[in-house]
């Protein structure tokens, strides 16, 4: 078991006042709140900060912790409480953090154990009754990253998450769950999926909670996504843009032939109807043309460009720049 330096977690000194501790907690809680932060380990950091505050905000727990801190960690950072250690403070729950100790570390449990009771499931209810033993399990939220191809064709994905359940002796424990989920074709970025009954188990015969998944589409090297529409930039040669051409372009569903209209400029958008993400109303694929030049020209080509410049001498591409 590793020693937890709660002062370091909150970034305060050992002599910090309760006000300083509260201020540090509030700042870090805002920074690492999983609904606010984009950091990958925000959830863990938020739990660490909550655990540190749970101990340091309480004078009795803080005094016990300070005593243990002096007793100290071993050289390798591991920790064992002194023989016969028993907390007088214990875990009371509640307070500002609304602390659910089931998420706290083994270190916390070892020092202030006796917590993690089913009573940790707080909350009201429709009529405000919170005395009933029959209780629906919590809904669990998770995010699922999909590649565009997976969202387009549908796929089977593994989802790992944690549910809270009441174990032996009425203790609330966290249990990892692992599901294989069939994702249907045509999922959009930000779309929610509900897996009925796959959240935390109900209490006293109550219904299980659901697993609520929010889909996130991973960036694609060629396509960008706008709702159900897919955008792709397609390079064309100057003569294809000038004379018109039939070019092959990729779609997520396979290659298609696209007619580039005569006289197209860079940035012109062409719509491939129904080639976006599938659905009841499938999206479109928007092709953005980009006129590109060859890296070098032959003498013959340069001669032809000179002839072109003479033939089009009245064309001023910078006319709008007022130069």
């Amino acid at each position, binding site marked *: 078991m590793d020693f937890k330096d709660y002062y370091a977690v909150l970034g305060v000194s050992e002599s910090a006042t309760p006000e300083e501790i509260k201020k540090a907690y509030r700042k870090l*809680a805002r920074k690492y*709140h999983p609904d606010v932060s984009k950091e990958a380990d925000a959830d863990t950091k938020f739990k660490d900060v909550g655990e540190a505050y749970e101990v340091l905000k309480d004078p009795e727990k803080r005094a016990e912790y300070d005593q243990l801190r002096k007793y100290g960690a071993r050289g390798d950072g591991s920790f064992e409480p002194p023989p016969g250690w028993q907390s007088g403070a214990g875990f009371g729950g509640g307070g500002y953090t609304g602390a659910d100790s089931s998420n706290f570390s083994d270190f916390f449990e070892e020092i202030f154990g006796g917590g993690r009771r089913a009573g940790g499931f707080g909350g*009201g209810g429709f009529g405000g009754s919170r005395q009933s033993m029959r209780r629906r399990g919590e*809904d669990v939220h998770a995010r699922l990253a999909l590649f565009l191809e997976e969202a387009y064709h549908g796929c089977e994905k593994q989802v790992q998450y944690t549910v809270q359940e009441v174990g032996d002796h009425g203790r609330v424990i966290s249990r*990892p769950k692992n599901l294989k*989920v069939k994702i249907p074709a045509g999922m959009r970025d930000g779309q929610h*999926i*509900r897996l009925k009954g796959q959240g935390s188990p109900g209490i006293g015969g109550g219904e299980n909670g659901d697993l609520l998944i929010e889909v996130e589409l991973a960036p694609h090297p060629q396509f960008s996504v706008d709702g159900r529409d897919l955008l792709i930039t397609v390079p064309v040669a100057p003569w294809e843009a000038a004379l018109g051409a039939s070019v092959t372009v990729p779609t997520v569903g396979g290659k298609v032939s696209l007619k580039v209209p005569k006289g197209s400029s860079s940035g012109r958008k062409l719509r491939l109807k129904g080639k976006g993400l599938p659905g009841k109303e499938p999206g479109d694929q928007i092709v953005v043309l980009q006129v590109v030049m060859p890296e070098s020209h032959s003498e013959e080509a340069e001669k032809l460009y000179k002839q072109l410049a003479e033939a089009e001498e009245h064309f001023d591409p910078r006319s709008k720049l007022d130069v």
Partner: protein
Amino acid sequence: MSRKETIVTVELDDPAGTFTLREICERGECHAEFVIKLVSHGVISPIEDSPNALDWTFDLPNLARLQRARRLQRDLEINLPGLAMSLDLLDEVRDMRREVDRLNRLLDQFITD
């Protein structure tokens, strides 16, 4: 970690996946009064507005938003107007991040060395 794997077929948030006021209160672990206040602040919206709150039904994104509001209120001690503004700003930040990512990728395709 459990080795047992189950294949679950996903239920999409189509119109059939709706929640009554009672259901959304139970899932959000809150009183009906709190939901009514969230609706009046425009934080969440019933599918069809009705003067009688008991007639309201909510879709899955609104349930997820209510649960997010509850977590923020519980963890950060935010009052209702603050909650409404925080959620709007968080949504805006998320949308803008997505848009910036999308435009950056588009820009990368146009800019050549």
